[in-house]
């Protein structure tokens, strides 16, 4: 190309750019004026055309998409707004730079950087326009104008991906629908390069840079079918993190939310990520329950580890959560009024059950849907009403600071109190009733458990002893742990004492756990000299009784010289439970659902009763059982032919037992009505409930029944042992 033609091109282009800038500035004043829009379009169109003739492809490549956008603006597809004008001005500037390259004679040496810059600029617009077309997204994407930075999506496919019928390339292609794939890094590291490579196994992993205004959940949904076949990580662009931070800043909490809920609500993590993190936390709770030295990993840390959320966003969310807690305005309400409300909700649950029953009875199918909706609402109301009475246990724990300080001083001990899990919540009525047993247990630890500094030093322990109070939620229960690093329980002394008191037969075989459990029996104290604080071990039996009255359970574990751990398990509330209804003869009984392990249908070959030894054998697992008709001495109806019984396996703490019943009715919500004084001493029953039909069903005291079932079979076993001897 000769220099003259080149100069013409440059001059013309510069003219065009100048007119473009003028029009843009006018556009700011009159955005609706079509003349300016046309003028901008023409400028870009002319430059593109001329550059094409001269073979300046790098200019064509950039001008073409800009021209397309302007064409769409002319058609009314995009609004003329501040963003558009600002963007077009930047495009004009960029074109100018490109043309300067031509005038400098550098057209054959266009740097990659410059080209990238152009592409970035184009992407900036497509990112913006996407976010505008989707109304739901607009809000969460405000401030994301410059979404030039990319999402980083890591996909690590598992071996069976192909075999399961999935083609990773299909998902990546589909991803193009959500935005602009900037780069795909294919990791072939794991593809073996020799004989052992199985071509039907998938060894591929990818890292994808995606420019998109889609939300994290939308991106994740592309992979909805391979969530199990692929490890997926979606890391938002930096700019997106700012969006999350902004959302957190402006988020208005009407009610306190959990951390996971907050992060999901602003789109920082997806439901699936939350589910996975919670599963990981459950696992860590299981470990911590088994071994109190292990700490429960906070949800936030798990999310960070999995790269589900960035640290600043997490910290901000935690901050906001704390803030909202403090900000939350509270009002004082008379506890009786709350109690009344909860009672009424209970009645509502029953009435709703009655309605449901009637609807089913009369086959009103068109009403069913409405009833189902009401049922959901009632359930929500119930949960919310119960939540009103929920208080964190931390306050109860904190009261022990003073106790520990005073008592350790009095006894000349040096004891540190560590409190964890104070945010775990439970019903206020439960909190009130747990205070006394807890005080007893803490005092026992202080008094009998932790040694004096001198004794500790002799044993090679730190002079300062530690008492730990911990609380955590575990499947509808709250678990409270009192742990000390004191002397531990002396199994032999307990045995001697128990034998002396006639609690056990001399020489009777007992497991360590069974032996420790004896300390909850009346009149057993292991300390030779009782102190004036915790007395002679009186109290431990009271502790147990109190906890059981709350439908709870207490277990003790100890290692000589190392310390003692007392674990209390309690229901979160006393008012309403989810129950499982069974029938024995004509009577109906309710078993708290959280205690039901499984139900085995009638006539199943999976279980076998041994009437003589009072054990049931379920798939090789042996456990004691109770037949409800026998236990409650219900006159059995005349049953012809085969007995049709079912087995309900219940669990309390570590103990399991089977209830043999005639009928399985299924789950229901149950409002516990205390039995009158008259029935206070009834064994095996904790309360009653009124069914929708007006009938009364008894609520079974699973724990009591397990104990009875075990002792029944235990005594039989001893009897047979003796007979054999």
């Amino acid at each position, binding site marked *: 190309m000769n220099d003259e033609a080149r100069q013409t091109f440059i001059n013309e282009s510069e003219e065009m750019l100048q007119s473009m800038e003028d029009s843009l500035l006018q556009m700011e004043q009159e955005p609706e004026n079509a003349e300016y829009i046309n003028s901008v379009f023409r400028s870009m169109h002319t430059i593109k055309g001329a550059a094409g003739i001269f073979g300046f492809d790098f200019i064509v490549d950039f001008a073409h998409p800009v021209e397309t956008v302007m064409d769409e603006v002319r058609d009314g597809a995009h609004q003329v707004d501040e963003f558009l004008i600002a963007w077009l001005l930047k495009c004009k500037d960029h074109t100018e730079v490109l043309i300067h390259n031509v005038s400098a004679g550098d057209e054959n040496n266009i740097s990659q950087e410059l080209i990238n810059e152009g592409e970035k600029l184009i992407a900036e617009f497509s990112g913006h326009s996407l976010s505008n077309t989707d109304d739901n997204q607009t809000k969460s994407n405000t401030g994301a104008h410059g979404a030039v930075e990319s999402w980083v999506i890591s996909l690590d496919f598992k071996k069976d991906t192909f*075999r399961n*019928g999935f083609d990773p390339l*299909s*998902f990546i292609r*589909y991803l193009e629908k959500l935005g602009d794939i900037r780069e795909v890094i294919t990791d072939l590291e794991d593809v073996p390069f020799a004989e052992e490579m199985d071509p*039907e196994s998938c060894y591929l992993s990818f890292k994808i840079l995606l420019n998109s205004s889609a939300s994290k959940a939308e991106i994740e949904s*592309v992979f909805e079918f391979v969530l199990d076949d692929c490890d997926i990580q979606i890391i938002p662009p930096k700019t997106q993190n700012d969006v999350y931070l902004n959302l957190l800043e402006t988020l208005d909490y009407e009610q306190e939310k959990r951390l996971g809920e907050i992060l999901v609500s602003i789109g920082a993590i997806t439901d699936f990520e939350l589910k996975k993190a919670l599963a990981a936390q459950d696992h860590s709770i299981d470990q911590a329950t088994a071994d109190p030295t292990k700490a429960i990993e906070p949800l936030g840390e798990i999310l960070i580890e999995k790269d589900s959320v960035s640290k600043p966003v997490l910290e901000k969310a935690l901050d906001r959560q704390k803030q909202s807690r403090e900000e939350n305005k509270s009002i004082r309400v008379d506890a009786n009024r709350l109690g009344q409300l909860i009672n009424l909700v209970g009645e509502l649950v029953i009435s709703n059950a009655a309605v449901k029953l009637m609807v089913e009875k009369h086959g009103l199918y068109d009403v069913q849907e409405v009833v189902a909706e009401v049922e959901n609402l009632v359930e929500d109301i119930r949960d919310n009403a119960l939540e009103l009475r929920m208080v964190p246990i931390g306050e109860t724990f904190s009261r022990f600071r003073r106790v520990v300080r005073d008592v350790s001083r009095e006894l000349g001990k040096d004891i540190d109190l560590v409190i964890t899990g104070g945010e775990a919540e439970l019903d206020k009525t439960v909190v009130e009733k747990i205070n006394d047993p807890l005080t007893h247990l803490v005092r026992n630890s202080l008094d009998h458990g932790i040694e004096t500094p001198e004794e500790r030093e002799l044993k090679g322990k730190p002079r300062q002893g530690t008492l730990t109070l911990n609380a955590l939620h575990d499947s509808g229960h709250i678990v409270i742990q009192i742990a000390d690093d004191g002397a531990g329980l002396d199994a032999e002394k307990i045995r001697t004492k128990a034998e002396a008191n006639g609690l056990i037969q001399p020489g009777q075989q007992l497991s360590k756990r069974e032996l420790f459990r004896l300390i909850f029996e009346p009149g057993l104290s292991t300390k030779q000299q009782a102190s004036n604080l915790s007395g002679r071990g009186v109290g431990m039996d009271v502790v147990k009784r109190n906890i059981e009255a709350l439908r709870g359970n207490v277990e003790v574990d100890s290692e000589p010289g190392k310390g003692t751990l007392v674990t209390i398990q309690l229901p979160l509330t006393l008012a309403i439970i989810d129950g499982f209804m069974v029938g024995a003869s004509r009577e109906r009984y309710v078993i708290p659902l959280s205690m039901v392990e499984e139900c085995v249908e009638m006539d199943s070959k999976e279980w076998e009763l041994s009437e003589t030894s009072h054990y049931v054998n379920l798939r090789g697992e042996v456990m004691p059982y109770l037949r409800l008709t026998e236990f409650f001495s219900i006159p059995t109806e005349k049953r012809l032919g085969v007995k049709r019984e079912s087995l309900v396996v219940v669990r309390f703490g570590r103990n399991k037992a089977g209830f043999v019943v005639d009928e399985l009715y299924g789950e229901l919500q149950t409002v516990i009505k205390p039995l009158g004084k008259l029935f206070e001493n009834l064994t095996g029953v904790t309360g009653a409930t009124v069914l929708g039909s007006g009938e009364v069903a008894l609520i079974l005291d699973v724990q009591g029944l397990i104990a009875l079932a075990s002792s029944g079979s235990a005594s039989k076993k001893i009897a047979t042992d003796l007979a054999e001897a």
Partner: protein
Amino acid sequence: MAKRILVVDDSSSIRQVVGIALRGAGYEVIEAGDGKDALSKMSGEKIHLIISDVNMPNMDGITFLKQVKLNPKYKFTPVIMLTTEAGRDKVNEGRDAGAKAWLVKPFQPPKLLDAVEKLVLP
């Protein structure tokens, strides 16, 4: 080359709606009314994706799927199972039989198309 999808459902109206959506997106569609019908219509043809209902007369979706997966030709063919909320318990059985993608009925055609395109592009 257009990708071929086999649609198995006993409801002719569902087959029709699904068929229109898929053909419109550029797929080739074979329709069958139940598992048996589907097996005879496949007869060795290359199939890129199977969309199947669970409850059908003659041969239900899961039995059909087990049969299909016996044929090495269809060992790797992706399957989308259509299920109703009530049939949730079938999901595990279906998964074992080789259906890794599920779609809950009723669905809008775009939702189906989304699911299909994630697995096989037209």
